[in-house]
């Protein structure tokens, strides 16, 4: 029974039809969370005694950085599932995840740089976490470049899945190496298990923002994947039926 469910999950059509109902809920949830987090973080959370109001950029920077890294793992794991069980849907998820991840990495780099100006007095600092983020950005760019280089879609999917897996194995090594290379950086400020060094009044909106970003990420990933499904399945009967049904309604 479990297998049947698993294989049905591999069917793009089943996935498309199932997720149609989720979309409005997911959209509402992510907007609500992001709005709450942003208003709380920007308007109600206290100012930092050292950095003043400029620290508030962490409400974008930190969630973006979280998702940038998590997005790579989501991409790589989708690719692995596609390779192992020879399913098409995970490859579509993988392909959709790459540009979102790259964009989030870019957002986290830009916000990091903007934050760095008042904090360190420079737009670019070879700080370990920013450098790691930059390398992650390169990994995403390589992934996208490889995906686009192939004309044969199957080869493109599988080759980029292998690259994503190699990247996934390498990311911890790269992070540790860069960490070791540069120990002159702020210590990681958010720890869920041990004692947090950030004040709760600042932390709660941040947590809401992180969850909101996760929900928003899921929403965009689903949207992208659904578009990819339609593009790849455009020749099938069910997509034609869907289009004619939509046209009739309009």
């Amino acid at each position, binding site marked *: 029974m479990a297998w049947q469910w698993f294989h049905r999950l591999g069917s793009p059509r089943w996935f498309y039809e199932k997720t149609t109902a989720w979309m409005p809920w997911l959209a509402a949830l992510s907007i609500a969370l992001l709005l709450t987090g942003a208003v709380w973080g920007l308007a109600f959370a206290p100012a930092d005694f050292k950095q003043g109001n400029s620290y508030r950029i962490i409400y974008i920077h930190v969630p973006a950085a979280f998702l940038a890294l998590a997005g790579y793992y989501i991409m790589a794991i989708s690719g692995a599932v596609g390779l192992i069980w*020879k*399913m098409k849907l995970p490859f579509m998820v993988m392909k959709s995840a790459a540009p979102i991840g790259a964009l989030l990495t870019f957002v986290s780099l830009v916000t990091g740089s903007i934050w760095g100006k008042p904090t360190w007095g420079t737009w670019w600092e070879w700080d370990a976490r920013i450098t790691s983020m930059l390398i992650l950005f390169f990994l995403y760019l390589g992934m996208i470049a490889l995906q686009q280089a192939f004309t044969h879609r199957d080869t493109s999917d599988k080759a980029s899945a292998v690259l994503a897996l190699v990247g996934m194995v390498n990311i911890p090594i790269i992070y540790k190496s860069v960490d070791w290379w540069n120990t002159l950086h702020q210590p990681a400020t958010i720890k869920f298990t041990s004692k947090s060094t950030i004040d709760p009044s600042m932390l709660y909106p941040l947590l809401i923002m992180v969850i909101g970003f996760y929900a928003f990420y899921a929403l965009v990933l689903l949207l992208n994947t659904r578009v990819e499904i339609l593009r790849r399945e455009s020749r099938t009967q069910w997509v034609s039926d869907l289009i004619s049904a939509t046209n009739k309604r309009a």
Partner: protein
Amino acid sequence: MTDSVTKVKIPLLELRKLGCERDERLLFAELDLQLYPGDVVQIGGPNGAGKTTLLRALAGISTDYLGQILYADQRLPEAAWEFAGDSLYLGHLPGIKKALTPAENLAWYQAQSGAAIAVNDALAAVGLYGYEDTPCYQLSAGQLRRVALARLHLSRARIWILDEPFTAIDKLGVSQLETLIAQQSAKGGVVILTSHQDLTLPQLRMVNLQDYQPARAGDKTNDDLGGLTSDGAYHG
């Protein structure tokens, strides 16, 4: 197709409901074929029918196919190693290093998959006596092809998968190769080949891939055949 005597034997190679897809287009499907020792099968069909795709799937280069391939009653991806030791594939590309001599090229194949006879004897058998130590970049296209064909003499494999083996070789070469295929069949081997040449082998069977093209929806062109299997997972 097969009489009652051979039917009880296990086919050396069996294709069950085989289908191949390329770029979301189903080239052929539901291909059932049993190859018993001694069988020679010529795969026919127009350009783009999937002849090369089929041979590459049989050889084990590609594993993206629907249905099953069985080697001596074992499913293929699992029995790939045993199959690799008992099969020989010659594709469009000769697989010959131009920087090396014919003897050096064959020595590598010998170390990879063993040999029935000496390298020089294999080269002599394809009319390359005296060319053993000439670098392959000095050989003509036909001679290069013969170096690749020398592997047929060298190998002990029972299953030969030959993609257009007659290209670039002269008349004499063609008749020699036909004899070689007949000998392989007589030894209890199996030969699957594609060719535009009309072969005169008595034991030859023809399989036309056009007969296995998936049912056309209406009167559409080949390009519109796609997506017939795209609902769901592959079953590799």
